């Protein structure tokens, strides 16, 4: 995966500079008609994040290439998830292209068949540009985008892993080594915590709902690994689940700043960016703001590492986003939307994601682009962490329909633990509360 070919590097490098020209040249060679839907207008609804920002900033490229006009917007993810579901359920979505958080909405979207199967389009040479190179997408990302019935109703856009951010300065001062296991992480975090000086060993999400993915990071390292078994039965009150809960409780209670029970990623980021936390476990996308001296006091001092191992396994949480096409849109719009999808996840845009630190692309070629990586303002350990994380990634949330309800129910219990509540009792309560919801939902599908 890390091996580079000179050709790939050159292609990527050139792509960075002159994309439209390159694609048009490719056009001329292959005879692929990018302009067959010229004059069409499509609406694109994205989750607000740095990836979407890149797509929106560069969408002129697509408009110039195809003659299709794009109206795109990005909305905060919480509202976005709620809104697109409601719009799809109404039968008249206001958008043709949608970005879907697979870890939250995959099953729901798949069950209702709100987005169209993309496999026939991929197989159609009149619709898919010859240089699209679908083989370039990681097998894991493709599997994540594919439903149980074999339909691929989204195109992988990017994958997100939980990684360990650490403050190199604090580590150096304390002569600390990177923790290999969660137990080591806890010991180290305790050693690095000096509440009086306003320094904390660890910071991570404590807010209900958001906190579940930190908890499952620990759970992934246990024997059972997942929240549900193969028959979709809940396993969140087992001894393994309790071990993860205890880890969550003691880390956040003893080594994180007071008030962490209300922290989402943004409070964690503020704390870490102020140099007040030695370690932070969260998604890969935070490198950009952390390395920006305009926004962060720790720019240039941030270390990146793969998450530690648990007692039985070594995994990091995997999340993913895919782009889908509304099945309810008319045929021309669906065609235009498919061209947009091809452009959005082309090699150039995917490389832009990686080199700007906006996240881990779903394609593999950007990681091989040594030249671009060297030119990036992020350290080598960042890219190595991404590649290594990709090898041990495993879905961080169960593939069920009522994900939000699951996260709210379990998350409330986790928050209570930070307040001192008994781990086993809280997990039991949350599990009992959510089990009937899950059973009902599974019966329905």
């Amino acid at each position, binding site marked *: 995966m890390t091996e580079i070919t000179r050709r790939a590097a050159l292609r990527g490098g050139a792509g960075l500079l002159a994309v439209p020209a390159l694609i048009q040249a490719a056009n001329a060679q292959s005879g692929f008609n990018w302009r067959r839907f010229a004059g069409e207008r499509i609406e694109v609804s994205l989750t607000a994040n740095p990836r979407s920002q890149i797509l929106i900033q560069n969408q002129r490229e697509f408009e110039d290439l195809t003659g299709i006009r794009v109206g795109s917007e990005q909305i905060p993810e*919480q509202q976005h998830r*709620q809104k697109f*579901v*409601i719009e*799809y*359920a109404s039968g008249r979505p206001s958008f043709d292209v949608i970005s879907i958080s697979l870890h939250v909405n995959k099953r*729901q979207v798949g*069950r*209702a068949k*709100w987005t169209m199967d993309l496999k026939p389009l991929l197989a159609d040479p009149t619709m898919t540009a010859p240089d699209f190179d679908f083989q370039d997408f990681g097998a894991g990302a493709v599997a994540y985008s594919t439903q149980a019935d074999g339909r691929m109703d989204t195109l992988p856009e990017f994958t997100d892993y939980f990684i360990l951010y650490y403050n190199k300065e604090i580590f150096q001062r304390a002569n600390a080594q990177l923790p290999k296991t969660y137990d080591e992480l806890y010991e180290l975090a305790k050693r690095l915590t000096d509440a009086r000086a*306003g320094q904390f060993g660890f910071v991570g999400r*404590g*807010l*209900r*709902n958001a906190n579940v993915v930190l908890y499952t990071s620990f759970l992934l390292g246990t024997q059972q690994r997942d929240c549900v078994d193969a028959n979709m039965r809940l396993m969140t009150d087992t001894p393994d689940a309790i071990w993860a809960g205890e880890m969550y409780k003691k880390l956040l209670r003893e080594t994180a*700043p*007071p*008030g*962490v*029970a*209300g*922290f989402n990623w943004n*409070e964690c980021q*503020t*704390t870490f960016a*102020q140099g*007040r936390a030695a370690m932070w476990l969260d998604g890969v996308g935070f490198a950009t703001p952390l390395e920006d001296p305009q926004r962060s006091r720790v720019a240039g001092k941030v270390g990146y590492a793969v998450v530690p191992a648990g007692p039985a396994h070594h995994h990091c949480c995997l999340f993913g986003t895919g782009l889908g096409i509304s099945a309810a849109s008319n045929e021309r719009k669906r065609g235009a939307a498919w061209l947009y999808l091809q452009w959005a996840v082309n090699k150039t845009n995917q490389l832009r994601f990686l080199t700007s630190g906006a996240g881990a692309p779903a394609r593999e070629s950007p990681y091989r682009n040594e030249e671009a990586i060297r030119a990036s303002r992020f350290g080598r350990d960042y890219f190595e962490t991404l590649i290594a994380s990709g090898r041990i990634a495993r879905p961080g949330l169960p593939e069920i*329909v*009522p994900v*939000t*309800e699951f996260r*709210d129910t379990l*998350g*409330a*219990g986790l*928050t*209570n633990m*930070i*307040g001192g509540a008994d781990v086993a009792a809280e997990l039991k309560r949350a599990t009992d*509360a959510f089990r009937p919801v899950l059973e009902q939902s599974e019966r*329905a599908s």
Partner: protein
Amino acid sequence: MPTGVAQEMTEAAALRGAAADSARRRRAYARRYWPFVVPAAAVVLAVIVFPWAFTLWMSLQEWKIGGGRSFVGLANYQRLLTDDRFHWSILRTLYFTALAVVIPVVLGVAAALVFHRRFPLRGLARTVFILPMMATPVAVALVWTMMFHPQLGVLNWILTQFGIPPSMWVYDANTVIPTLVMVEVWHWTPLVMLLVLGGLASLPVDPYEAAKIDGATGWQAFRYITLPLLMPFIMVAVVIRTIDALKAFDTIYVITQGGPGTASETINIFLYLTAFAYYNMGYASAVVVVFFVLIVGLALLLLWSRERFKDAVR
């Protein structure tokens, strides 16, 4: 005597007749004013009464967005009876409402007494004081969120300057509701102040002069003259505050989304999550109906007290 009785009887009949006549006249008189109400009635029927009826019907359905819909009778209501999360949300709403009524009313009365006096730059001070009432809650809520950060927020910095230990504000289950109340107080004390200020302006002068002659202290004059006279105005403030506190959503949603845990999950937040995060429309509708019944009961109570106090004023 018989003539007297007869006379009395005719008088009584005449009185009765007059009463009936006046009632008839009043009805006839009232009928003439119906056209004034028709446009508003149409709007109210379409956007207010229709949703009520629809919600009632929906509450009898099991319906998840993206799934099927089926009639389930009262099953949603049965589930509400045993749903601890819902029960807690009611208690939290009442807790929040009680604080968010009492504190602004007390502070608002005090502020009105201050702003009723004359002092330099009173106009400017008063304008600044009523600005929060006009400010967009969502916008201000986002700014509050930054101010509440337990380690880096400006509020804790101010506290430490005064030697007060930092607070966890919305980041702790015990302080979250009082903190949200604080935001509510900040927003709505000005309204109470304005209502009471109107009351102060309308107070008669005579009782004070009498009290001065009797040698009453300032506090006594306030306690025994001002306060009773202000009571109707204060009641109105209580009514408005109760209504708005029960409805509070924007600030809570933006600042905490019901957290930490479920510590600030009021009925409104629970309702929002059930409908638009869990997509459980039938169950959410049942929540609306129950909430609605609570509110109608309260409305009648408030209306009754308003009428009573209005009579007392006249």
